[in-house]
């Protein structure tokens, strides 16, 4: 399962990481080197083995449907890169019809 330069471009796009072309090739090599070691896992028989989920936990605790809200010691303008009238601002979305694309 070798990682191609196209794969790197695809995952970089999913992860919103801008990668230059020469860097993409280098990263493909690095990932292939790392993943080659991971191929050890393929040799392990894991038929019927549960995945490790919620290690050591006794099930999910729940909280009451009550306030008060967890307070912020500083208001949004102390940490927001761009704020106007209480809104966080981002560059205008080129396509804003669907809620799941940008």
């Amino acid at each position, binding site marked *: 399962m070798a990682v191609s330069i196209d794969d790197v471009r*695809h995952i970089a*796009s*999913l992860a*919103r990481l801008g990668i230059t072309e020469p860097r993409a090739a280098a990263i493909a090599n690095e990932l292939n080197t790392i993943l080659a070691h991971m191929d050890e896992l393929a040799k392990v028989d894991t038929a019927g083995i549960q*995945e490790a*989920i*919620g290690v050591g*936990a*006794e*099930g*999910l*605790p*729940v*909280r*009451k*449907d*009550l*306030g*008060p*809200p*967890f*307070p*912020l010691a500083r208001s*949004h303008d102390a940490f927001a890169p*761009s704020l*106007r*009238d*209480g*809104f*966080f*601002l*981002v*560059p*205008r*979305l080129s*396509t*804003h*019809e*669907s*809620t*799941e*694309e*940008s």
Partner: protein
Amino acid sequence: MTATATAPAATLDRWEMVVGLEVHVQLKTRTKIFCSCSADFGAAPNANTCPVCLALPGALPMLNERAVGLASRAALALNCVVQPVSIFARKNYFYPDLPKGYQISQFDKPLALDGWIEIGTRAVGAPIRIGITRVHMEEDAGKSIHDRFTGVTAIDLNRSGVPLIEIVSEPDIRSAEQAGAYLRVLKQILEYVDVSDVNMEEGSLRVDANVSARRRGETKLGTKTEVKNMNSFSGVERALEVEFARHVRVLEAGGSIEQQTMLWDGSAVRPARSKEGSHDYRYFPEPDLPPLILSPEWIEQVRKDLPELPAARRARFSTDYELGEYDVEVLTADPQLADYYESVARAHGEPKAAANWVMGEVMATLKTSGEDIARFRVRPADLASLLNLVRDGVVSHTAAKQIFGHMVATGDPPAQIAEREGLVKVDDDSQLSAWLDEVIAENPSEAERYRNGEKKLQGVLIGAVMKKSKGRADPRKLNQLLTARFAS
């Protein structure tokens, strides 16, 4: 590219519509699903936010108990099997109103599986069972506002983390009309179990539709498209008609349907702008939340606490109160209306009279004022008292309507209004005779013609007395007096 429903009926008939619906419903909780911020609408932008729903570095989610309760309640009302173990998962994608860069949802181990609802109504015909694949819990995203400032998008995260359930149907729906019926039945059930405001206009209920077309007789499913952005049930029905017609047109022309998302704009569908790279949500179990374990006892308790559901209530209304199908449907449409009716019927004792009043005066008044029955001034006990006054002959039917008007305006008890406004029925012979004398004196020719056998004039004379008495005259007694007067 846009499409409208223009294919000829004969062509459409050769094809069958196959629809599955995904319905998002906001749960009625005070606080958000994973933090204690208020879930209410209408606060100043980003006022209802904290480290958790802002996704500040280091913040962790904490599950709201009531959200689990309401979600389970909804799932059981939809005949689903609530799972003893369900798992939250991360759905990863970037969007500025999704603060963590992932939505906490449920994926391969949802809260509930394998439900159904029945959509037998007069409109659709014989009852049809629509399967419900799953009900799962998730958090809402925030709001991106594009038209507030020029050149930039404004992000408000007040809605970020509001609890939702997603109800996914099987592709069992075969027409736009059935889709509408499914949504109305679903909404009614959710209203009955009181888990959500289920208001599409306010966004507490949202519908996405998966639609495909196949030749009649074919058993394989065609390629589906997802239609989004409908903001009413009738909008869903129209969008499905239009999108189905587009599928048929493409398929009839020998083309093939591209699996994609379509947006409804109120009159036509068009493809959502093409994605930059395909969607790949990289779901994996949410490591910050261990598996949700619900004991059989807890699930059983939620089931026991379910209120009467619409179907059971309809059956009971028809048996217990001997109401006709139409009355039953109207009176059970809304659980609060049904409760109201039932209180009136029980207090008054005559279900049919109660039904007539609730479906008549009460609903007309609410329709005019746009008021909610929960806040309606005339309480069931008072309406029952008014009906008792009519039954016991204390006030006439005409006067009762006037009294009702005063009750709506003042909230006073009916007996008090009848007294105050002088609307108590008059059956005293001397008063009735006096009014009759005056009317005969004022209408000598009509009285004469009546005496000579023109019996249809009885109504005119009685009407004149009623008017003079301001509706208080007992019509039965008055009739007797009139007949007696001219009998000799």
